[in-house]
């Protein structure tokens, strides 16, 4: 079996010391030999790698139109270069200021309300002793995560929209005209409420995993020392959730400029652009529908760069504060 070494798995080779009969020529292979030996691996890797190259990396190059007065008819080669004109135009565009303001407000509300929601829910469910009840509640709260935004918005429209369920009930009490879906003032809170409804349940999964990793002796010891239920939660459960929460927070900060694109796109016709325009919808309306490709791409590119910088700095900050980063 050891005669044909070219095809044997390499796992056998690195770990073991050569036996007494090992031929002396089994030294380190050259790069070319290693590639040839693993040639079958490349038949598995190359198609997938090509996919990522074409659909993830090639479009990055498409961002050059941010420096052009691009039009689809002229193409990238035929469109004139305008330097940073698109980027300077962004600063004077009133619509993008609105979009940026809405994005930041929604992102802030999400961090304040939607981010802690799954932690609170996980703690609440964890405190249930009956496995049956716990599982039943989990089944129900996980479900909305799998529904598309179109379905979620449609359902909300039927419940809290004009002529919906709540409007009908309030009408019966002599309070007509209830319609949350078109109320521009409360819209940002509505967005966050929808986020919590859709994702808080599913978000508990990762916290449950963290809670499951806490040894029960720790609770027992604390209880013997006289710690109350609240104290045990505060001093044992919560600290165990911090690493996971930090990780999620870092990822959230990176996507702070990306707030529920489909969610807002779907609701903008109902509530108006002043309340529901965010950076991503701006890029779509201005670029794809409005034909101002250059400015829209510049805005998208700027957004992407700021997002990456934010992730990297949040990660660095987390590490500096003694926690674990992601990379």
């Amino acid at each position, binding site marked *: 079996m050891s005669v044909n070494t070219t095809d044997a*798995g*390499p*796992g056998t080779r690195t770990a073991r010391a050569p036996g007494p009969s090992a031929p002396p020529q089994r030294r380190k292979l050259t790069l070319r030999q290693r590639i040839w030996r*693993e040639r079958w*691996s*490349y038949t*598995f*890797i190359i*198609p*997938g790698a090509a*996919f*990522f190259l*074409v*659909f*993830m990396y090639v*479009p990055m190059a*498409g961002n050059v*139109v941010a420096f052009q007065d691009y039009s689809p008819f002229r193409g990238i080669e035929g469109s004139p270069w305008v330097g940073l004109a698109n980027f300077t135009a962004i600063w004077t565009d009133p619509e993008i200021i609105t979009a940026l303001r809405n994005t930041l407000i929604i992102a802030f509300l999400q961090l304040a309300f939607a981010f802690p929601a799954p932690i609170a829910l996980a703690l609440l469910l964890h405190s249930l*002793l*009956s496995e049956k009840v716990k*599982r039943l*509640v989990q*089944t*129900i*709260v*996980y*479900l909305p995560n*799998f*529904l*598309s*935004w*179109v*379905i979620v918005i*449609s*359902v909300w429209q*039927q*419940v809290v929209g004009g002529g919906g*369920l709540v409007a*009908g009930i309030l009408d019966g009490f002599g309070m007509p005209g209830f319609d949350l879906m078109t109320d521009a003032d409360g819209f940002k809170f509505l967005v966050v409420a929808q986020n919590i409804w859709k994702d808080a349940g599913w978000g508990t*999964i*990762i916290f449950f995993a963290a809670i*499951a990793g806490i040894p*029960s002796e720790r609770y*027992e010891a604390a*209880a013997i020392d006289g710690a109350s*239920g609240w104290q045990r939660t505060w001093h044992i459960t919560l600290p165990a959730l911090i690493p996971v929460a930090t990780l999620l927070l870092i990822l959230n900060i990176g996507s702070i400029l990306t707030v529920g694109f489909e969610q807002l796109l*779907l609701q903008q*016709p109902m509530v108006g652009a002043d309340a529901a325009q965010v950076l*991503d919808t701006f*890029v*779509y309306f201005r*670029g*794809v529908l409005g034909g101002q*490709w250059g400015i829209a*791409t510049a805005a*998208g590119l700027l*957004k*992407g760069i700021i997002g*990456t910088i934010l*992730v990297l700095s949040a990660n660095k900050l987390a590490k500096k504060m003694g926690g674990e980063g992601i990379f």
Partner: protein
Amino acid sequence: MATATVSRPPWMNPPPVWVRGVKAIVIVCIVITMIYPLVYVIAMSFASPEQARAGVVFPTEYSLDAYRAIFNGGTVVNGLQNSLFITVVGTLLSLAATSMLAWGLVRTRQVPGAKIVLIGILATMFFSAGIIPNFMLIKYLGLLDSTWSLIIPGLISAFNMIVIRNFFQGLPEELIEAARIDGAGEWRIFLQIVLPLSKPVLAVMGLFYAVAYWNTYFNALLYINDSEKWPIQVVLQQYVLAGVAIPGAVVSPDQPPPPGVTLQMAVIVLATVPILIVYPFLQRFFTSGVLTGAVKG
């Protein structure tokens, strides 16, 4: 909620009655908020025309007219068929492509260059090119207005690939070595040993892919102009949110069409049903913990 008797560890004091009461109320409220909107939509889709027009909290008289009208209309059925095609074909292709790549990247230490590919793929989880460059790529590839534009760009998810790769790394190496020594080719090992051993993770990832394909909305809005090729989510948006009337949605020519609200509810239900069907299967994996591991990985 009979929490009092269930396996309370001896060191744990039972909480005061009012705490348990508040907890029960909070949980009941959460459950109602989550489930009642869905129950209401399903119930109203079956409401009789009179009750639907009157607007009731919960219908008591039922009728199938909305569904009959929708199936007569054709547009919604067409959307369902498009989505079914995208979901089935997309999920199969995605699973094939993702597991192949994951298997190729399992042995990063031995295969020169694999590590770089892996890092390159991981990096894509933290950036994306943006809407317009993606649109330009699809246009350049000639995929505009093609159903494939809804399948190919989402073929491999970096996250799902990592989860499958983690699972592959946990497979018993001796088994694969033994097959190799017995002279099995790499494809045979992959198809006849690796994949059958990985059924649990493939099932979960398959369901994730299926849900994502079924829920495809924005890409269709962006890439598909031809309403014949719209998936159900775009159809739903048109007829429910944008309030366009469903063409030809009548039960029979000599009967007034069902009220718009029941038609809308019925479209929502039809778009949701496939998710509700696969959900119990997904549910199995929550409890077996595969998913928890997957999410953690």
